[in-house]
């Protein structure tokens, strides 16, 4: 049906790998930050809120360039990570995952934060009178009740990561098989004379992935909402 070339398959699988890894690593960090923003007052809270929202308002190429300066081979963090831990981001798929994770982070955090704010604190109090310490309250009451928001955040983040282009191409370039995601593959195909058919195939694939993610989130959210109403 869809006659995909191996280069196209490579781009699709790479995009999925990059986005899944970016979402899975960003989610626990996002939950922690969302909880802090929703439930704690601390010095520098508005600064933290502003910093995680920066990728949303900065031009993606700026974020990508800042990543290159920081996590590139000669970047402050990048050099240290390469020398001490052997982790290299520059021009690797891991760098694409980092760029996608950072670009999608505000979209991931926001629904989680809203759903944690919506959790009834009186239930958390009831849990504490039943012997649950703060950590147990979080795992047994707050997080399960915030689950629809967590899933919504993960789907939004994943969709953003799949579509990410500007920061990724600036940071890790457009190397087939290593950093060429669906978006950069489509971009490349639009630059060559007879790339239209292949570009359209990839466009179809990315629409299908986005739709599948939305449907999955809808199904999860509906199940979770039923649970929350105790039915």
């Amino acid at each position, binding site marked *: 049906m869809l006659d995909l070339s191996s280069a196209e398959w490579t781009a699709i699988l790479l995009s999925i790998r990059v986005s899944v890894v970016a979402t899975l690593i960003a989610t626990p960090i996002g939950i922690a930050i969302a909880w802090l923003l929703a439930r704690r007052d601390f010095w520098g809270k508005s600064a933290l809120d502003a910093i995680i929202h920066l990728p949303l308002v900065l031009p993606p190429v700026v974020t990508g360039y800042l990543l290159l300066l920081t996590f590139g081979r000669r970047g402050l963090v990048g050099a240290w990570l390469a020398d001490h831990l052997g982790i290299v981001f520059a021009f690797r798929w891991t760098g694409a995952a980092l760029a996608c994770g950072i670009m999608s982070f505000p979209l991931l955090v926001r629904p989680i934060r809203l759903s944690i704010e919506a959790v009834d604190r009186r239930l958390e109090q*009831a849990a504490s*009178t039943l012997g649950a310490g703060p950590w147990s309250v979080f795992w*047994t009451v707050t997080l399960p009740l915030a689950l629809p928001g967590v899933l919504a955040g993960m789907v939004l983040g994943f969709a953003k990561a799949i579509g990410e282009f500007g920061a990724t191409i600036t940071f890790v370039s457009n190397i087939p098989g290593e950093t060429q995601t669906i978006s950069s593959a489509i971009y490349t195909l639009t630059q060559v004379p007879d790339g239209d058919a292949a570009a359209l195939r990839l466009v179809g694939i990315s629409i299908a992935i986005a739709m599948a993610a939305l449907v999955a989130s809808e199904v999860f959210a509906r199940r979770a909402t039923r649970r929350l109403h105790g039915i």
Partner: protein
Amino acid sequence: MLRIEVIKQLGDFSLDVAIRTEGRVTGLFGSSGAGKTSLVNIIAGLLRPDRGIIAIGDDVLDDTSLNLHIPPHRRRIGYVFQDARLFPHLNVTQNLDYGRRMNRLAYDSAAQKHVVDLLDIGNLLDRRTGQLSGGERQRIALGRALLAKPRLLLLDEPLGALDADRKAEILPYLVRLRDETGVPMVYVTHDPDELRRLATEVVVLERGRVQRFGGPDILNDSAARLRV
């Protein structure tokens, strides 16, 4: 013995209370705004007193002069709220079992059976909380608090959200609770009839102060005077 000597400022309202009670059921009586719920929240550890001491027997839970505050989850004080506060993501059995899990107590089938029989909730165990009536919710909340094996049980207007018929349905269970479990209780209400049925001692609160303290018979003139 429960010892309460606390001062707490809450906006314009000030609570200044000193009570020692040996009662099996200590009734906290007063009109709304008298400070009953604030006092119970202080006993539970949900609210910290500005100054004062809370102690059960020799066990001090709050002592502001020593900067001591035991957090709620380490107090082993059960709390039944007016609005039940059952966990909506758990079914009835899981709600009942929550305190045992959190306190890492061994599963005690005898205690479980006793509480289920006492409250008559055997037919509700598989329900989701959304499928319960108001009276049923309150019975589950009672059972959930009891199964955490508290050394003191706080009940903040547990019948307040129920109509007269439902109240009549639950009151006998509370009487059985008093007579069949050894757990001392602090029972908050603005309904003198509930306290006449349940309380062994009564504290009348008015605008954050103890106005009277004694046996349930003090309700006869206080209730008339407070018009509740």
